[in-house]
C-alpha cells in the first residue's frame, strides 16, 4: 500500500539488439515476479554522451534503484557519481567488476568481456586453430573491441579483425571473401550469433570447408545453437544475459523492500556451450531467455 517501487535499467545496447533484448527480458521477468515497476532506457546507437544523458534523466526521477551497463567508465562516471550522491542504490551489469568498482558501484553482475574473449581464444586454440578472423559488426564499440582483443590474447596465433555491417548478405560475402583470399585461415569467431555466427557457418559451408574451418561465436541464437548441435560450429560463449537483467532487479527490489543486498560481485559468465548442451538451450533461446 506504500508507493510502488521503481527501478530503472540503463543499457547501452539498442532495443533491437537480440543480446540486449535478453537482458531486458530477464529484468522484466524479475520485475513481474517481484511486483515492482521497471523502466528500461536504451540509446539509439552506441553513444556514450546519450547514455550519460539517459543516466542523468534516470537520476532525476529519484527511483529506488538504477542498474547500468558501463562501456566507458570515464564518460559515465559523472552521472553515476551524481546518482550515488543522491543516495540511489546502483548495480552495474554486463561488464567487468573492475570497471564498476572504479566508478564507485560496489556490486557488479556480469562478465568481463576481455576474459570472455580470452576463454574463447583458448578454446579455439585447443581445437587446433592457428590463424583466426574476428568478425566485428560494430567496430569502435569498445565492448566488442575488448572481445576481439581478449580473443587474440587467448588464441595466441594470428588474429585479424574483419569489420562488417549488420546485413547478413554482406557479412556472409565478406567472410567468404576473406576465407577465399587466405586459405590458411582455419578459425572464425563471431561477436554476434545472429548476424555473424550463423552467416559464418553458412559461408564456410558454401565454400565446402565445413570441418576444416572452425566457427564459434559470442552470445546465443537458436540458429547458432542448432549449428553447434549439428557440429558445424564449435561452441557459443554464453554469459547468461538473462541473469544480467534478472539478478540486479531482484537485488535492488530486495534492497528497496528489506534493505538486503549481496556483498560481492556475481560472475554470470563466461561459459562455453558445446554440442552436448546445445540442444537443451535452443528452445529457451528462441524465447529470448538464453
Amino acid at each position, binding site marked *: 500500500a506504500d508507493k510502488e517501487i521503481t527501478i530503472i535499467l540503463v543499457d547501452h545496447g*539498442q*532495443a*533491437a*539488439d*537480440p543480446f540486449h*533484448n535478453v537482458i531486458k*527480458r530477464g529484468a522484466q521477468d524479475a520485475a513481474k515476479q517481484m511486483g515492482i515497476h521497471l523502466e528500461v532506457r536504451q540509446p539509439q546507437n552506441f553513444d556514450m554522451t546519450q547514455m550519460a544523458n539517459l543516466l542523468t534523466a534516470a537520476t532525476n526521477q529519484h527511483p529506488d534503484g538504477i542498474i547500468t551497463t558501463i562501456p566507458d567508465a570515464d564518460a559515465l562516471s559523472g552521472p553515476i557519481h551524481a546518482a550515488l550522491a543522491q543516495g540511489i542504490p546502483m548495480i552495474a551489469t554486463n561488464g567487468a567488476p573492475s570497471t564498476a568498482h572504479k566508478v564507485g558501484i560496489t556490486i557488479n553482475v556480469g562478465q568481463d568481456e576481455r576474459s570472455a574473449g580470452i576463454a574463447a581464444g583458448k578454446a579455439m586454440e585447443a581445437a587446433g586453430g592457428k590463424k583466426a578472423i574476428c568478425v566485428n559488426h560494430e*567496430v569502435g564499440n569498445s565492448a566488442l573491441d575488448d572481445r576481439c582483443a581478449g580473443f587474440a590474447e587467448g588464441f595466441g596465433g594470428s588474429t*585479424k*579483425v*574483419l*569489420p562488417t*555491417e*549488420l*546485413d*547478413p*548478405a*554482406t557479412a556472409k*560475402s*565478406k*567472410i*567468404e*571473401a*576473406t576465407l*577465399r*583470399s*587466405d586459405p590458411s585461415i582455419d578459425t572464425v569467431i563471431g561477436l554476434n550469433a*545472429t*548476424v555473424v555466427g*550463423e*552467416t559464418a557457418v553458412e559461408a564456410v559451408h*558454401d565454400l*565446402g570447408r565445413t570441418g576444416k574451418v572452425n566457427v564459434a561465436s559470442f552470445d546465443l*541464437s*537458436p*540458429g547458432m545453437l542448432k549449428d553447434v548441435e549439428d557440429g558445424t560450429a564449435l561452441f557459443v560463449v554464453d554469459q547468461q544475459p538473462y541473469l544480467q537483467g534478472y539478478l540486479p532487479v531482484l537485488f535492488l527490489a530486495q534492497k528497496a523492500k528489506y534493505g538486503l543486498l549481496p556483498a560481492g560481485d556475481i560472475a554470470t559468465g563466461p561459459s562455453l556451450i558445446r554440442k552436448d548442451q546445445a540442444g537443451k538451450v535452443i528452445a529457451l533461446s*528462441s*524465447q*529470448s531467455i538464453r
Partner: protein
Amino acid sequence: MNTVQITPEASTAAPPNAPAPTSKDERLRQTSFTVKLMRRPELGAIGGLILVVAFFAVTASGSMFTLNGLMTILNPSAQLGIIAVTAALLMIGGEFDLSIGSMIAFAGLIFGIALIQFHLPLGLAILATLVVAGLVGALNGQIVIRTRLPSFIVTLAFLFILRGLSLVGLKLATGGSTQMRGFRAASENSVLTPLFSGNAFGGLFRWMAAHHIIEQLPDGSPAAPGVPIAVVWFVIITAAITWCLLRTKFGNWIFASGGDANAARNSGVPVDGVKTILFVLTACSAALVAVLTVMDAGSTDAMRGTQKEFQAVIAAVIGGCLLTGGYGSAIGAFFGSIIFGIVSIGLSYTNFDSDWFQVFLGAMLLIAVIFNNGLRRRITGER
C-alpha cells in the same frame, strides 16, 4: 481535345530564311560515335566501375575474380541494387525515401507473420507483403503531397516508425524474441520457392563444372552453384525500369515531375499520381528485397536493412543521379550498386589492415565518382 490542323495554310508561311532541312547543320561540330555513346548518363558510371576493378585487379588476391568470387560480390550488390534502382527512379522524380531500410525489416515481419503464423501459401504471403508495403509507400507519398513537406523529413519519420514497429511486432509474434525463424521449413514445398531463394542456372553451372569450363569443388560440384536469384531479379528490374524511364509516357512524367514539379503540373502531368506510384514502387522493391533476404537467410530480425536507405542513395548518386531530381538513370544506379558492392567486399580480398576499411571505402567512392563525373564532363564538353 481537338487538334488544330493548320498545316495547309501555315506551311506556306514557314519562315523563308530557314535553310532546307539538311542532316548536317553548320552550327554543330562533328562528333564520333563513342562520344555520342558516352553522352548518355547511364554510361558515365562505367568509368568508375572500370577504375575500381582495375584497382582490385592489382591489389586483391586472384580469387576475387573467379566466377565464384564474382557471385559472392554480386549477391549483396544485387540486394542493394534492387532498392537502389527504384530509389534512383524516385530521386529522378524529385523525392527521397529514407524509410526503405526500415521497410526491409518491416516487410520481413509481415512476410513472417503471413507465412509462419498464418500459414499462408508462399505466393499469397509474398503478395500480402507487397500489398502492405505498397500501402505504407502510398501513405508516405500522400503525406508528402498533402502536407507539401520535404519527403526527407516525412520518410525519416517512417524510418523510425517502421523500425520501431518491426521490433514491437517481432516480439509480439515470437513471444519476446527479436528474431523470427522457420522460413525455410514453411516455404520448402512451394513451387514458387526457386523464384525467391537459392541460385538460378544451377543446371548450367553443374554442366559447366562437369566439363571443366568452370572451377569445381573436390566433390565435383561447381564451386559457384549458380547465379544468386537476387542477381536475376536485379537485372530484370533494372531492365524494366530503364525501359519505363526512357521509352514510356510514365518515364517522361517522372523526369518532368522531378525537373520542375510546377512546370510539369502546369503542362498537365499528374505529378501527384506519379510521385505516389513512385513511393509505392520503392516500398515494394524494399519488400521484395526483404522476401529475398529472408528466404536467403531463413530468418529475419529487427535490425534488417539498417542503413540500406543510405547505401541506396549512395549507389544512385555514384550512378549520376542528381539529388535535386530530374536527372539520372537506372543503369547508373545499377553500376553504382555494383561499384559499392565491389568496394565494400573487395577490401576483404586485399591485404590492407582492416582498421583502414572505412578510409578506403570513402576514398574509393570519392575517386570513382570524381572519375565518372570528370569523364562525362570531358566527353560532353560540358563545363
